[in-house]
């Protein structure tokens, strides 16, 4: 052991101890959030870890930036082996993996270190260039600190340069050239004139710079947004945004819990530890915000800031709690003031929360599986359930849901008026005859009361009749399942309505439900199971596709002009339920002469129509209207027709298209199919 070994040992163990302290503190802070089991389905979690985590699949949604980041990430994984070697070298001079590894393993190792040092250096150069010169909008739209990113990138660059310097200078000093083709090249060109003595000194200095920088880096991370380097893989494993569980389903809530005195979240302690881990894992890349329809159209909401503010509030509160504990448990006036603040209002405003359309674009984009929407939903729940605070325009919708079982004050008696003269039985009529239909056609409130949507209802019923499907409707017994209330944060009203619906459905022993409303589809299929409703719920696009595949729908596909059709993805079909193909396939089959054109943002990147998350019942007074933005994008495809698969999208897009002065028709998938029925059902 030399003096330098001892010095290094002191530094190494000091650094590790300091890091352990930081890590323990961060872990302890997570416990400010409430408990939540996130270890179920380890198989799915491990799969997410391997794909989203290690294979970086979501990062790669941005092809260039994603590849650059992935190279750095994979480089770090590979170079980690070298880092261990260096740490051991510091303690035992002269150690290399060669000492313990067989040659056939050591040589590839040497090559890998050389290659990945360069693989990291190239993207770092690009990323620095992007930060400093290109400056994409998502880096500047929010008040986040770009400075740290530049600092970290420079540090990584220095690490790679010193590493390559150590390799190259060692070669000049006479080390083995086996496998060292890059440093060998550098040694023989750039550093050809360096004497062995100088080389030894430079190598020595570079080695120390590299080793110390690594230890500094390790201890810098817990205090920087680059904490994600340490936590994101863990976060991906614990996340539910790509499963396990029912993707997009809101967090269940026990309203009957004894002694519950908080519903939803107004501060960090009401969030789960996983929400807080999301905060640690956010590196402020802004992909979520760049995809957010509210942010894109000038609203104050930025999903990134929701996460950043959650982390900031956690840090503020946790540090203060630590100080208070250290001070003997008595808080100063200043400390009390900090503790009395809340995440809600003091950090995140109501306006941000109500701007959300719950479209899930942010969640879909996040490379490290952060759930921004979960935090938004929990804060909305506090606003409504604890404080009864919401935009006043929501009051009529909530009142009507309670009184009339529909967000619009229409009479339940009018629900089945669309079916007059169509000879469609209700469940009650069938039950009276002792019969059971194959499917229940769930019409939904839009389909029952909105005159435009009623045309979709009729079109779909005609398809079912043409295909000879034995179906029934609930008629006056149908009521809203409460999804709008749930999205607005009113879990109480939601559960009341949902339980009522489940009671009705179970009373008729309903098993299969088909609906054309993606919100009904998602709610009844994906969220009902949490409160005891278990049905096979099928969206009409899937169902029509199936009927077409079985050849049960007689279509006239001979005639008709060649049409260019643009399909607009509904969030609750696409991102919530991964249904992208069946509407497109249905269009292609129903219209063999169709040409499908895609808008700029499509499928999992599709832009929301602006109606989700209860926005249908709210005013939109700030910035550009989301439906206008989306409609312009759809019109820009030059389509002759726009197809939708959701009655809410229908309203919003029709409005946007009309507003743009265009007369391009907006049709539901079922209307397109019904218009091609070969045999029209007798009127």
């Amino acid at each position: 052991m030399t003096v330098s070994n001892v010095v290094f040992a002191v530094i190494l163990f000091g650094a590790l101890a300091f890091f352990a302290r930081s890590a323990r503190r961060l872990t302890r802070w997570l416990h400010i959030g409430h408990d939540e089991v996130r270890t179920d389905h380890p198989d799915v979690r491990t799969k997410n870890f391997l794909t989203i985590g290690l294979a970086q699949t979501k990062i790669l949604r941005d092809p260039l930036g994603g590849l650059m980041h992935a190279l750095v990430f994979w480089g770090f994984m590979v170079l980690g082996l070298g880092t261990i070697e260096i740490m051991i070298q510091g303690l035992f001079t002269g150690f290399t993996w060669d000492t313990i590894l067989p040659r056939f393993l050591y040589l590839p190792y040497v090559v890998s270190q050389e290659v990945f040092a360069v693989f990291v250096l190239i993207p770092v150069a690009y990323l620095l260039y992007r930060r400093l010169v290109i400056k994409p909008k998502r880096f500047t739209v929010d008040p986040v600190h770009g400075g740290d990113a530049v600092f970290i990138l420079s540090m990584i660059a220095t690490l790679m340069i010193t590493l390559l310097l150590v390799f190259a200078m060692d070669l000049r000093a006479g080390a083995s050239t086996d496998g060292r083709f890059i440093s060998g090249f550098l040694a023989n060109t750039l550093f050809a004139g360096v004497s062995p003595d100088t080389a030894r000194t430079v190598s020595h200095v570079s080695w120390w710079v590299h080793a110390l920088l690594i230890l500094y880096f390790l201890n810098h991370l817990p205090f920087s947004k680059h904490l994600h380097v340490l936590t994101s893989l863990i976060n991906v494993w614990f996340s539910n945004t790509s499963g396990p569980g029912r993707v997009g389903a809101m967090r269940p809530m026990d309203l009957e819990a004894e002694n519950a005195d908080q519903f939803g979240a107004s501060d960090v302690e009401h969030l789960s530890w996983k929400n807080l881990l999301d905060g640690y894992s956010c590196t402020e890349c802004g992909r979520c915000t760049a995809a957010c329809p509210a942010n894109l159209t000038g609203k104050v909401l930025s999903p990134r800031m929701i996460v950043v503010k959650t982390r900031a509030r956690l840090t503020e509160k946790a540090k203060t709690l630590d100080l208070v504990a250290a001070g003997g448990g008595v808080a100063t006036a200043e400390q009390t003031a900090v503790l009395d603040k809340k995440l809600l209002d003091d950090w995140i405003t109501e306006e941000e929360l109500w701007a959300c359309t719950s479209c899930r674009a942010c969640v879909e984009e996040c490379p490290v599986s952060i759930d921004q929407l979960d935090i938004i939903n929990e804060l909305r729940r506090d606003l409504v359930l604890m404080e009864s605070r919401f935009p006043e325009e929501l009051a009529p919708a909530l009142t009507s849901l309670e009184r009339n079982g529909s967000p619009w004050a229409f009479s339940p008696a009018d629900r089945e008026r669309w079916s007059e003269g169509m000879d469609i039985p209700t469940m009650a009529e069938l039950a009276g005859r002792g019969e059971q239909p194959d499917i229940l056609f769930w019409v939904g409130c839009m389909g029952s009361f909105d005159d435009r949507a009623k045309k979709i209802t009729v079109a779909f019923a005609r398809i079912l009749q043409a295909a000879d499907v034995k179906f029934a409707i609930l008629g006056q017994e149908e009521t809203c399942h409460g999804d709008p209330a749930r999205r607005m944060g009113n879990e109480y009203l939601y559960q009341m309505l949902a339980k009522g619906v489940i009671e009705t459905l179970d009373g008729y022993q309903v098993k299969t439900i088909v609906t054309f409303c993606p919100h009904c589809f998602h709610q009844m299929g994906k969220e009902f199971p949490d409160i005891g409703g278990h049905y096979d719920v099928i969206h009409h696009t899937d169902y029509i596709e199936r009927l077409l595949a079985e050849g049960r729908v007689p279509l006239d596909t001979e005639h008709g002009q060649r049409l260019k059709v643009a399909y607009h993805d509904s969030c609750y079909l696409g991102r919530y339920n991964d249904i992208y193909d069946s509407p497109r396939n249905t269009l292609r089959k129903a219209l063999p002469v169709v040409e499908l054109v895609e808008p700029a943002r499509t499928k999992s990147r599709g832009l929301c129509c602006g109606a989700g998350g209860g926005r249908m019942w709210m005013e939109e007074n700030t910035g550009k209207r989301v439906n206008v933005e989306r409609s312009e994008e759809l019109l820009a495809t030059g389509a002759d027709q726009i197809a939708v698969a959701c009655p809410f999208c229908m309203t919003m897009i029709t409005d946007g298209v009309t507003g743009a002065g265009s007369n391009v028709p907006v049709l539901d998938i079922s209307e397109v199919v019904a218009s091609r029925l070969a045999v029209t059902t007798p009127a």
Partner: protein
Amino acid sequence: MANVLVFAESRAGELRKVAYEAVTAARRLADLSGGGNVHAVVAGGAGIAGALEGLAQHGADSVLVLEHAAFTHYNPEALSATLAARLTGGTYRYAVFSATSQGRDLSPRVAAKLGVGLAADVTSFELDGETVVAKHPQNNGKVIATIAIAGAPAVLSVRPAAVQPEVNARPLSTEAITSSVDPSASRVKVVELQQGNTGKLDLNDAPVVIAGGRGLKSPENFKLCDDLADAFGNAAVGATRAVTDEGWRPHSDQIGQTGRNVSPNLYIAVGISGAIQHLAGMRTARTIVAINKDKDAPIFKIADYGIVGDVLEIMPAFTDAVRKARAQG
């Protein structure tokens, strides 16, 4: 043979149209009973006795005039006491009020003082023996109740416009009466009467609402709606969400789910297609008129009367016709 006391409502020293309706109703009751006397009570400040001819014209045998500075404005406490005092003692079998804001304030007080029931807001009535049997809409007008009032005197208030004033002239006979209590000692005092229609009528108050939609094509064309509102004289102008979103009209003018809910007697939808969002705010209007270029527009499904065509052409013609009709009426 039964005598009827009727309260003839005035405001700011002038008799209102409902006063003649009430007198007509009282006359009818008296006649139904086999011909009794109708005594109309008028209250007001100095000068109220000036223009009472109309009451006799519509069938009041006698007009009892309560003239006092303390009756310049509505004085519910003194008025109810005076009327109750008049009605006590068996001279009158029936008492008739208008079911206006004033009559609906006054008649329950009088009935309570007399300790009898009240048939409020009746739309028609007849006699079954001496018992008044009347129709009274309930449940937002979705149910019609036929009620009977047994008390003596039987007190009823008649819905405005339910009875059209009928001329049934007799010579004007007036009698000055005094308040049964000190009218200046009332605890509740009207300190100001703000006559309406000086400014714009509020959407919720206006008996006629004209709403414009995107079919008007530009903010300037909203003048067509304003002109029609002027022609009606008792109308307010609203708009759809699409229009207020465009900034053509202020958000406070929005009628619909996220805006105002209105239920006027007459609703005129101009260039409005009738999305659920809009219908939710105006479906309960009594009569709905729709003007739209698209004959398949959903608004025609709920409209009582529709005209298909160019709103820019129809509106000026409609405005002219309304102006003429009002000038004649």
